[in-house]
């Protein structure tokens, strides 16, 4: 096994010097920070990042203008009363004005409110305008019907509605809409990272094996080491690079949270805890070893990279399924389908991680998931080693399935 040390070191160096690796390692945390902190930033200042041109308003009484201004000031947008609809339309088209709001004569009960914009898709803006107009119209109608303003305020006062998350050991945690959004984003980022890294490293192993095979380097390697040492060395070398990457990310998440976040008054979502980062690493390692072994076997059985791509498709589907089911994972983490997928080894790394982030899966399910994963990793390694041993020396033709099955049976 002394020789494996050199193979691991060689593969680690080749991987860590790779540009994709460096870019992903550096950008990973920013991706986490950007995507998960974005809802926080937007909630604090919905206009942030949007070019805030004034919104023209035509035909609105003073009280309505004030209500609109209050609604838009949170987005750093000014209301600009205009007296020509045509000119305001031109201004909107040319981009000087963000949009034009026209209240027809007799609004609210005789005329309509019209929103003119360049895209027609500025939902956040016209949503805010609509809410402000409805509120103004309601107040106006109540006032016109002779109800006292104080009574009207009481009638219109919002009610409180809190969401509380039940944690094990009797803990209860209030969840705001924003916190839910943060959790959703965190789950999205975590499972995307897991998906990307498992797939990326798996493909790197597969390509590395195919290249070694097609470039004939494998003959020299096998004149020095056993096929098992070669395969395991490759997997361990890349795995080590993966651990380094996750260590960098965890460290950066810690630094961001501890030192950089407070400077901007931002905190990482609660879901990005050290404990969850730990789970991320555990599921990365198990998922990595499972998929890397499978890819090593597929690489050895492939004739070239194109062939590898075709053979790997069924495998990739198991990685994609959890991504497609993101919504179900977050909203029904304890549904039968999600529970089954969180125990089935090919999907469990991603699905179980998502469940851990949003709910608290029962201990037995977690234990079953981890034990099955470990068994699957060992089984896949044994299977891959058998395919690898024979396949790595086969060149010149695409092996048929029966042939590969025969390789597995070879003693």
């Amino acid at each position: 096994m002394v020789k494996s040390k050199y193979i691991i070191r060689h593969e680690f160096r080749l991987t860590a010097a790779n540009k994709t690796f460096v870019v992903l390692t550096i950008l990973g945390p920013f991706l986490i920070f950007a995507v998960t902190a974005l809802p926080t930033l937007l909630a604090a200042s919905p206009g942030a990042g949007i070019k805030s041109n004034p919104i023209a308003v035509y035909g609105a009484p003073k009280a309505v203008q004030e209500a609109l201004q209050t609604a838009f000031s949170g987005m750093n947008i000014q209301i600009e009363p205009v007296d020509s609809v045509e000119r305001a339309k031109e201004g909107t088209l040319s981009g000087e004005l963000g949009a034009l709001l026209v209240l027809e004569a007799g609004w609210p009960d005789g005329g309509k409110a019209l929103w003119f914009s360049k895209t027609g898709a500025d939902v956040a803006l016209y949503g805010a305008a609509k809410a402000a107009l409805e509120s103004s119209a309601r107040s106006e109608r109540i006032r016109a019907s002779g109800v006292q303003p104080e009574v009207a305020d009481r009638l219109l006062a919002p009610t409180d509605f809190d969401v509380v998350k039940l944690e094990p050991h009797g803990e209860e945690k209030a969840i705001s809409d924003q916190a839910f959004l943060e959790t959703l984003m965190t789950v999205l980022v975590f499972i995307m990272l897991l998906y990307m890294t498992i797939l990326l490293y798996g493909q790197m192993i597969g390509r590395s094996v195919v290249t070694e095979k097609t470039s004939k380097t494998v003959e020299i390697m096998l004149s020095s080491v056993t096929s098992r040492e070669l395969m395991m060395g490759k997997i361990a070398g890349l795995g080590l690079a993966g651990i380094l990457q996750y260590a960098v990310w965890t460290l950066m998440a810690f630094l961001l949270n501890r030192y950089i976040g407070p400077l901007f008054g931002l905190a990482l979502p609660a879901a990005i805890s050290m404990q969850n980062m730990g789970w991320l690493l555990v599921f990365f390692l198990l998922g990595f070893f499972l998929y890397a072994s499978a890819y090593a076997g597929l690489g050895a059985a492939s004739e070239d990279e194109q062939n590898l791509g075709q053979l790997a498709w069924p495998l990739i589907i198991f990685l994609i399924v959890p991504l497609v089911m993101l919504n179900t994972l977050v909203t029904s983490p304890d549904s039968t389908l999600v529970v089954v997928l969180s125990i089935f080894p090919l999907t469990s790394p991603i699905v179980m991680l998502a469940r851990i982030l949003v709910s608290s899966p029962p201990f037995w399910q977690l234990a079953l998931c981890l034990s099955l994963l470990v068994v699957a990793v060992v089984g896949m390694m044994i299977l891959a080693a058998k395919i690898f041993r024979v396949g790595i020396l086969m060149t010149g033709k695409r092996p048929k399935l029966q042939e590969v099955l025969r390789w597995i049976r070879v003693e």
Partner: protein
Amino acid sequence: MTDSWTLVADCALVTDSVRSKDTITAENISKTYAEVKAVSDLSFEAKPGEIFGLIGPNGAGKTTTIRMMMNIIAPDSGRILFDGRPLAEADKNKIGYLPEERGLYRKAKLGEVLEYLAAIKGARPQDFRPAIDGWLERFGLSEWKNRKVSDLSKGMAQKAQFIAALAHNPSLVFFDEPFSGLDPLAQDEMLAVMAELKEKGATVLFSTHIMEHAEKICGRILLLNKGRAVLNGPLADIKARYGRNAVQIEFDGDASFVKKLEFVNSVVEYPRWIEVELRQGIDSDELLKAVVGKLKVRRFEVVMPSLHKIFVGLVGNEGLGSNGGASYGQV
């Protein structure tokens, strides 16, 4: 033995000669892929201080044999002995290997690749580093040490591969088709290195489908065809045994009439060169008389038959395999 060369058919087992250090022995090895018998009941022995040639046309089973000798694949039956005991994984450290199909990690630096390949042979850095520098210097590749392998020309990459086979100072070296793709100067360099290795007492195994190469450097040969041994023994003895009544002629003109001469047994024919085997009891003078005036003779030499000729004589042209058979080249 009275006859130091042996037709392998008479020699199923390797002689129980003294199995000195670094001797590699194949004992009745066989290998079958699917339904194809790649190697069948092969036995031979290569000793320190000699260059042993594994010769045969493409598809004869040379690479399979070498892979078994390298412990890359296991024989279905028979065994490989090294130092007189079954070849073990640890023995790989003493073996250097230049595969027929060349390949190095293209994205890595040359020096790093060579050090890596020496390290996985179990050599110590303090030993292989100076050795690598020495070889790079000798092959004029020193300034390429810190460049990527992909920057090397084909010839340089071949030399680099040669270094990779030798950097850990092996006592047994396999060269699988070492001269393919090399220019004549580089071939001479490789030949010199192989001769040095032999002088230093290394066991050198050499495989080729170009029989002239084998004739120039091998002390003993094993001639393979369709996975079976056709000839096995010292080259000089084999030639002496078959070397009767053959003449080589270099000429200008049309020599097609020669094979029709009644005293001619067979002819190996090239545009400006022929090798003629005469019938028993016919003197080479007869041939000289027959060609004078019809060909512009540049060289007329009574020789032992080429290995190719012997091979064809033993197995016939159909034995030359499906890939075009044995071919000629220049060293």
